[in-house]
């Protein structure tokens, strides 16, 4: 089933046409990778889905983006509810300068109002277990999250999203600051999470896209050149530009 559908999506930064007529369907409970050279608009596209582009001045968007059949570009959309549903993992892990515990219950505190201690404890435990951090961290939940390793921080950021019950995870090069082993463990986590989440990952690492994704979209200069099943894109691309990119002729 299509979770996110874009129809004739266009986006401008001032006069710069950053996204051109994007039409794509992102399937539920699958991992979709968006690949392409730097500056092709892949991060911009990702940031459309949780309206993070709104933070930048001079951004203009046209077209439709339907998430669960609701147009999220509409003016009257509830941004808080949208961002709760559509979580984002950033390129550099960005845990808040609070304790591990407070990082995870952050969402509950801002959305849920007053929650009982036992409910918060439970949220922390289940969220950390989902990202396989519970065993490592259960004895230092009240220590600062800033002292964790990069991989632990990135997992913590994912746990933070699990705690607010997001069902779409946007990942903007989530592994670019991790070493290869940590990367493969985070990829494993993504595969595990896709049973319950719709995941869209932006990456400039084609091997990663080929490894983890079910579907892949290739972008170039703001255009979505090709979109389809990953095995097709990586073995038999239809477009010459896609072929050139994945065979390493540019990028």
């Amino acid at each position, binding site marked *: 089933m299509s979770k996110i559908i874009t129809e004739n999506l266009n986006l401008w930064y001032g006069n710069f046409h950053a996204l051109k007529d994007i039409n794509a369907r992102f399937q539920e409970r699958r991992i979709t990778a968006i690949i392409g050279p730097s500056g092709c608009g892949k991060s911009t596209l990702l940031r459309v889905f*949780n309206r*993070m582009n709104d933070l930048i001045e001079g951004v203009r968007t046209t077209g439709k983006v339907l998430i669960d059949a609701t147009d999220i570009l509409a003016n009257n959309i509830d941004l*808080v509810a949208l961002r709760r549903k559509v979580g984002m993992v*950033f390129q*550099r892990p*960005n845990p808040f300068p609070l304790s591990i515990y407070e990082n995870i219950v952050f*969402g509950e505190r*801002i959305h849920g109002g007053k929650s009982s201690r036992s409910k918060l404890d439970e949220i922390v435990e289940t969220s950390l277990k989902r990202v396989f951090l519970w065993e490592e961290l259960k004895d230092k939940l009240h220590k600062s999250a800033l002292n964790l390793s990069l991989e632990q921080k990135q997992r913590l950021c994912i746990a933070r999203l699990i705690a*607010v019950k997001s069902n779409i995870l946007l990942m903007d090069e989530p592994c670019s600051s991790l070493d290869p082993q940590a990367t493969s463990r985070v990829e494993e986590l993504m595969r595990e999470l896709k049973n319950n989440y719709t995941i869209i990952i932006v990456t400039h690492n084609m091997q990663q896209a080929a490894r983890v994704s079910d579907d892949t979209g290739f972008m170039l200069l703001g255009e979505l050149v090709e979109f389809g099943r990953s095995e097709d894109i990586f073995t038999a691309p239809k477009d010459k530009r896609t072929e050139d990119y994945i065979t390493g002729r540019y990028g």
Partner: protein
Amino acid sequence: MRKFKEFFLEKLIFICGLASILFVLLIFFFLLKEGLSVFKTVSPLKFIMGRNWYPISEPPQLGIFPLILGSFIVTIGAVVISVPVGVACAVYIAEIAPPKIKEILKAGIELLAAIPSVVLGFIGMVTLVPWVKHIFGLPTGLTALSGSIMLAFMAMPTIVSIAEDALYAIPKSYKEGALALGATHWQSIWRVLLPAASSGILAAVMLGIGRVIGETMAVMMITGNAAVIPHTLLVPVRTLTATIAAEMGEAVVGSQHYFALFAIGIVLFAISFAINVTADLFLHKDK
């Protein structure tokens, strides 16, 4: 010849660099030498805890407790007023204000810092003091409260500019992360940005306090200068600084009174030193 010139210039600059340290040391030793003499006749405990300041009675009674409390109460009052307003102002400038208003506000705050304290003092004297007298129905408006309000104005520029720097220095990713989790703008400020900037904000508050405690002219003009132990904010008080400024001209050089004023100087020096060190610790905590 050229080598000699290089050598000469280098040494000259070195001496200029040393000069500031030298002056601090000279002032410090002079202060100690003059101030400590008072303890030949009064014990330090009696000096600090003594409840009566009658420096020219015979024999003089040199207890600075009312003065310490005077400084303390005026400072607390000023902090209670200036910290919430100053931090809120910094948050507004750093996070909320549109660029144009931001520029205007920053310029306004710099101007506030540029007003000489004596000017603030006499403006307070002719406007604020009658106002305080009227509102609270007091015999005189020259009270600790008036002093606190005026000093709050003086502490504001320090607090605002340092707190604002601290807020600016926070990585953008914190705010993005909070917003991406569905936090509102206010929630991201209150729950993420302020805690993240807390050490810088504490430093701002400490430096603001330092500014308030050392201030002399304005407090002397509007606090009434009665050396009695204050029980509320609505009575005249006398601060440590105002005492020195008001009495140094009349004290006979070499008298007990004269030495006692220097000893007050030592107390002030110790207080502001402690405040500055604390502020410094907060500022460099993360590095």
